[in-house]
């Protein structure tokens, strides 16, 4: 029962934690090599400017421990589809998260409907978050801007869906100075089997 309550409390309908078996491939952007190039091949990378700093999907686990393995979390909570792109900024763990409401995407196959969708982040139903040094107030700052799923497609053997796109949003900083998340891009591979792992949570 406790387990059920726990599950219910976090309101997870679908959840997946994807730790791809292979390393992400960081291809430097040909215009600004600090960011990954925009690609549509499921290379397992993401990156963005956080004001003048660089956030990438390179994950820091702790002192001297890091990984280029792509880490993306996708789940459905109430009517909200949520994405977390894990990464780091200047050796500090940081993630970019999106809560998107009313898309009607509840299962793996529905993700394909995101193809070519440009979703406005209004800070209310659709929100972008930048979380550095997670705290209970991390979700208080709601980002306004845009996420663009420019290309969502099955891979060649139809075992995974590749989501590729861009994002940009701004959110108030503690001193009400806007924190700008600019020139964001992502290219991840999501497997159907990863969606089935959500059973472990229930």
């Amino acid at each position: 029962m406790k387990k059920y309550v726990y599950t219910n409390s976090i309101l997870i309908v679908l959840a997946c934690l994807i730790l791809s078996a292979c390393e992400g491939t960081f291809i430097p952007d040909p215009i600004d090599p600090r960011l990954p190039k925009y690609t549509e091949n499921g290379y397992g990378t993401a990156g963005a400017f956080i004001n003048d700093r660089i956030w990438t999907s390179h994950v820091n686990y702790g002192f001297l421990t890091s990984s280029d393995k792509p880490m993306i979390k996708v789940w459905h909570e109430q009517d909200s589809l949520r994405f977390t792109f894990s990464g780091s900024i200047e050796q500090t763990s940081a993630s970019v998260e999106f809560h998107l409401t009313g898309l009607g995407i509840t299962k793996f196959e529905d993700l394909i409907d995101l193809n070519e969708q440009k979703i406005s982040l209004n800070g209310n139903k659709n929100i972008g978050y930048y979380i550095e040094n997670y705290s209970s107030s991390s979700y208080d700052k709601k980002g306004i801007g845009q996420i663009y799923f420019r290309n969502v497609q099955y891979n060649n053997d139809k075992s995974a869906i590749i989501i590729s796109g861009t994002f940009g949003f701004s959110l108030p900083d503690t001193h009400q100075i806007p924190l700008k998340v600019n020139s964001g891009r992502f290219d991840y591979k999501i497997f159907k089997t990863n969606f089935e792992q959500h059973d472990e949570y229930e």
Partner: protein
Amino acid sequence: MRNIKTKKGPLIRNILNTFIFLALILATNIESKAQVAILASGNYCNIRSDISLENKESLLGYNLGLSIQYYPIKKFKNVSIITEVVYNRKGYQQQFEKNYQFKFNYLSLPILVNYSLSNNIAMHSGIELSTLITTNIAKGKETYKNFDLGLVFGLSCFNKKRISCFSRITYGLTPMLDYYEIDDLGNFSREIHDLKNICLSIGFKINIYNEKIRLYK
């Protein structure tokens, strides 16, 4: 991608030492009619672009190859054709908190018309066709075009000696990159076809075949 900061000082000193050494050899050389040569040069390379590449800097590269010179027209004995097969390293770098180097290794085929201004000085011009073999950039052959075309202008000295030297500029004509301009919010504002090589080469040729190759009787 490897991010190794170039140590320019010692490299430039070594190049200067090499040229002083070559100049001494040239001064004491015997005349030859060599028309097949091996060549080596240092490249001072960069990229031309319409889009703004922040903190862009030149990169040193090199050429290694084989050169064949032949005389196709009896009437114009000063005119010859030079065909070369060259392993050619070009590139550029961008300096941020880290140094990002973009190295492109081409197999190049320059086809040049050479005109002898005097016994010791000639000028040449033509085209250079290149195919990208390797690069230090992850998935670089997917990112950058595998074919490059450039115009070549140059001068050479002491062509009739066993060791001659040359200098040339290769001016890239074809864009190396097809990509997108993406704004801060993530909108794709336009396609871009940009980045063209430009390269100054200074090097020497060692003649290994001492007969003129004539294509006429």
